[in-house]
């Protein structure tokens, strides 16, 4: 008979919040520490939904310390292309945590039912960021893509990325400026003040040259936001939220 494990962190999950919209299945998955001790430095290293293609977040995601009887939420989205509404799929969250002087692994599972697709409850800007990490040079370089359709009037005018460690900004594209505290955030914005805003990123276009440097040699996923300016109404327009890799605390 197997022995019962006591006096240690152990994990569970609950039914996730699920949204099927814009060909994307978004999940907010609770991770609970149902053990009798705190789990330190929890890191999510992978989230799977059957064989569906993951869209975000970039891995790993640092959850931090999780005390006994406490919970944290992990957000993830997958392509809904190969998912059938009404069918059950297994969600698995895998990761690591520290307890005592050692690092252990965990994995929690949940079957979910794919709901019918709905219209987006909030419209978002179509945009994304790609990151290139050079661990030799200790640089993180970002390229911003405006994924709006060709006829859109939404041009990207700023990008803000959450950070967790000290860093310096080593790259800013021409026509853009940067605002940062060199620790918790970096905000790049186009300096144009009137139409035609020549340095905004047009629909279908991309812009690289956003770069930071730090002594860290590992990455983790953090949030970002991309804002747009409507060149027809000459007003602020939709925002995109996402995540990307940044220098890690660990």
């Amino acid at each position, binding site marked *: *008979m*197997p022995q019962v494990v*006591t006096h240690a962190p*152990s994990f569970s999950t609950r039914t996730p919040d699920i949204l099927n919209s814009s060909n994307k299945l978004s999940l907010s998955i609770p991770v609970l520490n149902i*053990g009798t001790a705190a789990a330190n430095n929890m890191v999510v290293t992978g989230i799977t939904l059957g064989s569906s293609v993951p869209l975000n977040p970039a891995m790993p995601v640092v959850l931090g310390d999780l005390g006994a009887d406490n919970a944290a939420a992990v957000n993830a989205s997958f392509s809904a292309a190969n998912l059938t509404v009404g069918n059950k799929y297994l969600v*698995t969250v895998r990761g690591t945590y520290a307890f005592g002087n050692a690092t252990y*692994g965990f994995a*929690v599972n*949940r079957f979910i039912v794919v709901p019918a697709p709905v219209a987006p409850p909030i419209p978002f800007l179509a945009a994304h960021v790609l990151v290139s990490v050079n661990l030799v040079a200790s640089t993180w370089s970002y390229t911003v893509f405006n994924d709006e359709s060709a006829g859109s009037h939404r041009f990207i005018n700023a990008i803000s990325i959450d950070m967790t460690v000290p860093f310096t900004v080593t790259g800013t594209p021409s026509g853009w400026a940067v605002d940062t505290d060199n620790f918790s955030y970096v905000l790049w914005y186009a300096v144009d003040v009137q139409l035609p805003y020549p340095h905004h990123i047009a629909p279908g276009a991309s812009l690289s040259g956003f770069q930071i440097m730090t002594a860290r040699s590992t990455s983790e996923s953090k949030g970002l936001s991309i804002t747009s300016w409507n060149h027809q109404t000459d007003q602020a327009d939709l925002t995109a939220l996402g995540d990307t890799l940044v220098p890690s605390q660990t």
Partner: protein
Amino acid sequence: MIPLCLLRSRIAILALAVLSLLLPTAARADLILAFTPDFQVANPGNTVTFTGTITNTTGVTLNATDMFLNFSGFDPTSLTDFTQLLGTPDFVLLDHHISPIVDLFSVTVGPSTQVGDYSFGVSVLDINNNSSDMLTATVQVGGSATVPEPSSGLLFATVTVGVILFARIKAFGKYHCSNRAPGFGPSL
């Protein structure tokens, strides 16, 4: 005067109470997870499958896809890719019934894992948040199968005798009393 079948039912309930006191706390959870066996022998790079049974005493019927396995306490470099197999295929587990022996999960041994025993904790949770106790299972890397320790063997024998006893009492009671609805797996 107490009917014979009622008397036998009371004996069965008394026997169940005595047995539950003899068993560890794991046996009193709403879900009872049991491995057959609780260890697997593997070499680096192998993927092994753990099998076992789940006893449903939650008060409601469950599908296999209503139950979720959770793992913790393992060396993440030596044991990877814990994959739940329970629920594929799906089956119905009536209340107060024991599932047949089914594939529960698989785990892969890392390619550079050293010879030794690698243990981890496993529990099962259902869709209504009823949980089993956390049990320990082990992958013996580069080793050979060992005989279960005496206490485990003794406990297994106790459970086996108990199950047989219940089956006999139930069969007798079924003959003399009203029939129960048939279920998947043996009922308790």
